[in-house]
């Protein structure tokens, strides 16, 4: 932790008064990282970079956008047609939202699979869930801004969810709208908040990183670093690995931005909002479909009406993640050494995909049945995790990261069930 011996006099002068160079040295170079992180660990830094891309492209869009019901749609089309590289900024921002969610969902499932939420990283995980909630709010409000048909009707449906709250629901909805329907005040406040929330996310990401650097990254084996032989400095090893991963990611992202820019969006949002004409089908963007499926398939439960039950299920599906560190009592982090949980965690992914598929369809016939079963299974999964934490017999863990890594050579990780091996 001692200040590095800086060669440059100016650097030394600054560092003595404002230790930014020491800080960078400490957090990037001295910061010990497990040597066995797989490419699944790239998605944290990718999410951070996506956040920056979204903020930068969004700031440029905001310079040309007009948050008024009469001009919003046309101002977006003006960006597409008359602003230099406006089409590029808009397509980056539009597809960037989708890719941000892809990256974050993978990051989240990686944490689930390898038990990254367990002690001592509970707060790190919970801050991540806070970021996810903030992202969802930001994405929802951003989708309203172009003021197309789906913008308007999506906003109407989602804000109306709050009317499910007994007694005060309707007052809350009118307060959210700033009127008696989604209108100009709604658009204005959504724009204001859509500009604000990303910077709140930046702040929470700061806390997320602080919590991360306290105990360092988890790793595919889920065991703690035992000494210097288990770690390598973050820089240059993981900076270069993250950069390579970023390159691959940007190629895929570019294919969408330049060649399939509207594939993930709803065509109806290229029609201006019309409060007098309801679209035949109101669906959110794909990244909200699993939650939308829960909302629409939940039936009346005892004295709770279906609408309220759906809203509760939807919010509970996220909030339950806050309690995950205490639901899962297993002392073993990585699913590699948990023969049953290993498969159960894949079932959750399949369940979420099924929910996403159901969410894109009208809740009729089989979609209701499948939607209910998948919603039930989603919550049952967390019960299963609690049971497994008590009854599952984990496989023996390797004695150290270094042992597991070197025995196989070439940096490959030991397969599940590998016996503890002696150190080289």
């Amino acid at each position, binding site marked *: 932790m001692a200040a590095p011996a800086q060669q440059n006099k100016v650097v030394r002068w600054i560092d003595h008064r404002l230790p930014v160079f020491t800080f960078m040295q400490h957090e990037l170079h001295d910061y010990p990282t497990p040597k066995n992180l797989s490419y699944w660990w790239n998605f944290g830094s990718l999410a951070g970079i996506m956040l920056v891309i979204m903020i930068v492209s969004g700031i440029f869009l905001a310079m040309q956008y007009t948050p008024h019901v009469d001009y919003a749609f046309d101002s977006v089309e003006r960006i597409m047609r008359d602003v230099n590289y406006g089409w590029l900024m808009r397509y980056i921002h539009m597809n960037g939202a989708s890719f941000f969610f892809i990256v974050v969902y993978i990051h989240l499932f990686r944490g689930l699979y390898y038990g990254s939420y367990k002690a001592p990283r509970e707060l790190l995980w919970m801050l991540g869930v806070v970021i996810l909630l903030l992202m969802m709010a930001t994405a929802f409000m951003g989708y309203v801004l172009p003021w197309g048909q789906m913008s308007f009707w999506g906003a109407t449906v989602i804000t109306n969810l709050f009317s499910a709250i007994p007694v005060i629901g309707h007052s809350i909805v009118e307060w959210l709208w700033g009127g008696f329907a989604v209108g100009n005040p709604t658009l204005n406040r959504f724009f204001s908040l859509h500009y604000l929330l990303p910077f709140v996310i930046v702040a929470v990401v700061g806390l997320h990183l602080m919590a991360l650097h306290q105990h360092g990254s988890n790793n595919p084996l889920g065991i703690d670093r035992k000494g210097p032989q288990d770690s390598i400095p973050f820089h240059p090893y993981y900076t270069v690995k993250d950069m390579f991963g970023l390159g691959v990611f940007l190629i895929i992202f570019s294919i969408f931005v330049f060649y399939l820019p509207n594939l993930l969006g709803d065509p109806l949002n290229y029609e201006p909002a019309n409060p007098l004409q309801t679209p035949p089908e109101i669906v959110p963007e794909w990244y909200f479909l699993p939650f939308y499926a829960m909302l629409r398939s939940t039936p009346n439960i005892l004295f709770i009406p279906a609408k309220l039950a759906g809203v509760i299920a939807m919010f509970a599906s996220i909030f339950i993640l806050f309690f995950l560190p205490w639901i899962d009592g297993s002392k073993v982090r990585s699913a590699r050494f948990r023969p049953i949980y290993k498969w159960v965690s894949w079932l959750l992914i399949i369940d979420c995909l099924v929910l996403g598929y159901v969410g894109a369809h*009208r809740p009729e016939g089989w979609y209701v049945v499948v939607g209910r079963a998948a919603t039930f299974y989603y919550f049952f999964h967390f019960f299963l995790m609690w049971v497994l934490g008590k009854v599952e017999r984990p496989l023996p863990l390797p004695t150290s990261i270094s042992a597991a890594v070197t025995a196989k050579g070439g940096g490959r990780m030991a397969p599940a069930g590998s016996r503890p091996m002696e150190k080289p």
Partner: protein
Amino acid sequence: MRSLACLALAIAGLSLAGLGADAQEEVPPPKVSWSFAGPFGTFDRAAAQRGFQIYEEVCSRCHSMNLLHYGDLGPDGPGGGIGYSEAQVKAFASTKQVTDGPNDAGEMFQRPGRPSDKFVAPFPNEKAARAALNGALPPDQSLIIKARPDGPDYVYGILTGYKDPPPPGVKITEGRYYNEYFPGHQIAMPPPLAGNDVTYADGTKATLDQEAKDIVTFLTWASEPTMEVRKYTGVKVIVFLVFMTGLLFGAKRKIWADVH
């Protein structure tokens, strides 16, 4: 549960009158091979110009294109227009009468159009359009291709999908027409094209199929005039990224060589 789609309605207190019954079995539109399809596709300029001629002589009687300016057709437009010269655009715009003002006397006045003017709409407002057209509102065409799934094929299908008489057993409401590809099959627009609706300036034979393809090419250009720039830019960006990622892969291998 099913109430959610209706929920929005119920609370907003709106009527579903115009929506009609659920679309009966929807027929996927015919697959047409377009000049602008694919990662290297570009707009066939001649087809786009012929399409513009059809818009001018047929469609523009009812349909507006509010997002377009006459200048967009020329070299100064987004994406470089559809091949008209600046002089042609200027001459064409001047054939239109545009309402401008108020002048120093406080009055609105008519003047010949300029390239910076928007396409003049056929009706001054929605009510005027509905009054003239049996209650129907022709949608603005600026973004119609992007606002429909499979836009180009769908619009081509609508233009060529009229059947008169309708298939046996199908009842058509008064003032509606049977169309194979329209959701619900009952469209308020009378068949706009029948073949030989225009005399093409370049001598191309104006069959219905040719006309439909030409107007779709023009409308696709209109819905995203910057499409070609986007695709060219994409090639440059992706070639650069592949090169950079290759270098980073090499750097990663070299740096990691001494680990383990």
